[in-house]
């Protein structure tokens, strides 16, 4: 049976028009995307349809150096170099890290370990201070927020450039740069969870006459410790990845080996370093994720 037209209209309410925010957002999205991707002064010239063409017009010397897996001679020399990076005929040990790649790998781990430990240690008090609860005054909170936002807005490689200027090239600049980066990451994540803690223990500590510092240590720190430890481990993963970039600006680590082969146009060497680094990153990430799952 056919229903009367006005009855169905009543059953199906009119769809509300999109809000000005949605319309403006959509227009802004499209305009900004076109401006940034177009091939002109304000864009980078990204054309998804032309990408396959560029893919074919690749640089054959580089492709052959980086991954010429189908060539048997290339495979053989690749494996030789890989073996050469971790063995030394003069050394009594099976494994020797006294090669450009081996030393770079060890230095990368050392930089990441030092930066993570020092940075996380500094980040704990800083993140407590970065909340309304810990700062205990709106002026001090504003100062702390401004400081942390500044630290956070500088990318790790820019820190590395700065510290290379201040302490000259070497691993020390890398350690300092990643320490600042660790502080940025851990303070941001940890101060977010401090805002959500249970206030009961804090009130109990204050009622028992604890000083501000004692209240923070006994009532806040135990509550945030699992999260904080997990964030620090996460920062370690990020630091290990970040340490590859440091070498390009002279701040130590495996990036130095990458930069060395890169500047000599030895793409096979670059490929070996990148492969070794990738294995290290993936192994550490798997381990770190397993530990973090247990922590939280």
């Amino acid at each position, binding site marked *: 049976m056919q229903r009367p037209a006005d009855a169905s209209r009543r059953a199906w309410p009119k769809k509300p028009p999109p*809000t000005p925010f949605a319309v403006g*957002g959509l227009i802004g999205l499209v305009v*900004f*995307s076109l*401006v*940034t*991707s177009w091939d002109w002064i*304000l864009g*980078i*010239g*990204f054309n998804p349809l032309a*990408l396959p063409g*560029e*893919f074919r017009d*690749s*640089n054959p010397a*580089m*492709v052959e150096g*980086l*991954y010429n897996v189908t060539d048997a001679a290339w495979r053989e020399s690749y494996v030789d170099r890989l073996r050469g990076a971790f063995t030394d005929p003069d050394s009594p040990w099976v494994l020797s890290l006294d090669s450009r790649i081996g030393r770079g790998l060890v*230095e990368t781990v*050392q930089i990441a*370990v*030092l930066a993570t*430990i020092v940075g996380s240690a500094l980040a704990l008090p800083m993140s407590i201070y970065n909340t309304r609860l810990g700062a205990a005054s709106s002026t001090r909170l504003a100062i702390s927020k401004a400081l942390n*936002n*500044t630290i*956070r*807005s*500088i*990318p*790790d*490689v*820019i820190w590395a*450039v700065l510290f*290379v*200027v*201040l*302490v*000259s090239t*070497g*691993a*020390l600049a890398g*350690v300092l740069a990643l320490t600042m980066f660790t502080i940025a990451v851990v303070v941001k994540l940890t101060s977010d969870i401090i805002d959500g803690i249970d206030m009961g223990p804090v009130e109990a500590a204050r009622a028992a006459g604890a000083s501000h510092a004692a209240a923070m240590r006994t009532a806040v720190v135990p509550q945030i410790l699992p999260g904080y430890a997990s964030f620090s481990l996460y920062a370690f993963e990020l630091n290990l*990845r*970040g340490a*590859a*970039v440091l070498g*390009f*600006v002279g701040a*130590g680590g495996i*990036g130095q080996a*990458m930069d060395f082969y890169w500047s000599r146009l030895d*793409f096979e060497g*670059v490929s070996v370093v*990148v492969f070794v*680094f*990738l294995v290290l*990153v*993936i192994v550490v990430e798997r381990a770190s994720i397993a530990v973090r799952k247990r922590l939280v």
Partner: protein
Amino acid sequence: MTRTETPAEERLREQLRPEKPFARFRWTVTILLAAAFAWSALTIDARWDRLAQIPERTWNFLGLLIQDASLGPLVIALEAMWESVAIAWVATLIGVVISFPLIFLASVNVANRWVVLVVRQVLNLFRAIPEIVLAIAFIPFFGLNPVTAAVAMGVSSIGTLGKLSAEIVEGIDRGPMEAVAASGGGWLAKLRWGVLPQAMPEIAAFWLYRFEINIRVSAVLGVLGIGGIGTFLTQAAQRNYYDRIGLGLLVVIVVTMLIDGASARLRRRIINGPPGELDQKREAAARVQISGDET
């Protein structure tokens, strides 16, 4: 003042304040961390004595920055920063467009369990590879230019965007999906009317957040010489152009903070809806409650 405790008092004290148990886990972690720290600090080839020079060198550096300060390079610094922002935006777009269909194939409450397992592993692989490795891998094909950076970061963004958006989809309420199924909707209808309206605000907010992260990453990839503020600053530092270093740093800090601030406000607006609407909804709900009581 002091007097000896009676045995009863001692028992009471022990009951009130039990002895701290020996925390084996805590000790193991502390010792391991101390050992790792000591090994790294002692064997690393870092000249620790240079730490003492930092105050003096900072003072000199600041002096040079102020002495050479000029607004001359402002335009090229801003151009370089804009290029970084453009790279980050295009990379986010690539990540969004490719990860969007994958989100639903990676959520257990929407897709088949085996499909989810495979897609999740692919996303994890994209996430695990550092951006700089991807950039080096793409340079032979696209050359030393911003497009390479955008593609490398885009591929890397697919992993994080896909995984975290899938977690959002897995956290939604099943009710609307079941309602669509009950009224005869297919798989796509279920996604469109049952999943998207719930998950979309958070997913869109996460896209914006990824854009903020990508701005920093694009500065980092600049060290390879593929453009943006990273290339600008590393070259300025290599040549001791202090006017460019100072201005470049200022531009990075100010522009990053401005974009972070704007993006954070947009994200809040997307997730919370228009200002005041929440209160209106609560009021309306309260009114319904009252009128319901009356009847």
